[in-house]
């Protein structure tokens, strides 16, 4: 089945993270993006349980969903985690889950760009020769 092995890997990672995270919140407090969240919190320990809930396919809190929506993979959270959970992976999987990508109900709206691939193809056509298009993109 298409994507089955990827989904199995993601499920294993979710289980690992749920088992390893102590919800101390140090990942949140190290994150340079929390100030852009729609629902920032003073303490990370108040936010991380909501992220883990999202990973379990449960509704996330406003604070958790606000953080998930602004994660841009800075990775500052990774060395901040005392349990070596890999919070960047935690947040990426939470984002996939909250967007509905892993089968659970959608909790945040994706920023869709319906022209994304057509725009890439168009710029390629504007910049490359026919031979380059044929040899480089197919």
């Amino acid at each position: 089945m298409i994507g089955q092995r990827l989904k199995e890997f993601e499920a294993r990672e979710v289980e690992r993270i749920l088992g390893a995270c102590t919800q101390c919140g140090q990942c949140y407090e190290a994150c340079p993006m929390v100030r852009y969240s729609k629902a920032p919190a003073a303490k990370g320990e108040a936010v991380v349980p909501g992220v883990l809930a999202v990973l379990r396919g449960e509704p996330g809190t406003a604070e958790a969903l606000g953080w998930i929506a602004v994660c841009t993979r800075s990775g500052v959270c990774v060395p901040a985690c005392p349990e070596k959970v890999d919070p960047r992976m935690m947040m990426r999987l939470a984002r996939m889950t909250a967007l509905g990508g892993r089968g659970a109900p959608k909790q945040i709206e994706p920023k869709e760009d319906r022209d994304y691939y057509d725009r890439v193809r168009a710029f390629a056509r504007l910049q490359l020769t026919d031979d380059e298009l044929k040899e480089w993109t197919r």
Partner: protein
Amino acid sequence: MSERVTFWYGCNVLRHGDILHACLDVLRALDFEPMPAGGPDYCCGTGKDANQTAAGGMASRTVGRFNAREARVVAWCPSCHSHMHDFMGHESERRFAMTYFVELLHARREELARLFVHRVPMRVMLHQHVGFNDLVPVNRMVPELLSLIPGVEVRSAGYVAPGYMCASFNAVPKALDDIHAGTVRAARNAGAEAVVTTFHQCYRELVGLDAAGAVPVYNYMHLVARAMGLEYEDEYKAWKRAGEGATELIGAARIAQVGVQFYERAILPELKKRPRLP
């Protein structure tokens, strides 16, 4: 004997044919035989967080095609490189080595320096992000490469943006505004004449600062190309600077190839877009 490598350039760098051509020339000059591969048919799937079935299909297809080539993959795009590292290799067994383009240039920097035969007199500040550096330390490597170019002086102002590249901030526009403002401020504080980006995704966003007259912006490959005497025109920058006038620069024949309506809806607005500066 030259080594055949797959040069996996990604998707969005197709806006920058000059960067692609320069990368291929550099690889050939370093005695590689590059096989370019990119665009939607070689998508990594990193943009498909909302559809992991699609992401898995893309990973399976792209990894399978690279396996069939039986050659090392040299990746240009940081998103593709990290997605292969974090996810794609778990969908399909990967039977090829991976090297990030900056890593390759850095490993061959002594030979590269001998190719830098033209002076590029410029004081520059590297635009940096905190992310990606645990996978490839680009914030250290790129300044070291730039310092090999005669005439280039790399200045630091200590400003490091969040995230790992600018394009991912389209969903957080206030943060992108702050990055634009922080980059201009840092360049001025550093006494830099220009900002240089590592990634094309940052170049695409920051070249708007150039178009707005705030600070000249380049990708590091533009400086590498100049030092080697490569003369590819940066058409994207010319179009961006021209804004509405890009239509005339591109010309009716090329626009007809992509469709006038599509050009006006999906291309021209990007070329006219300018950063919000305080």
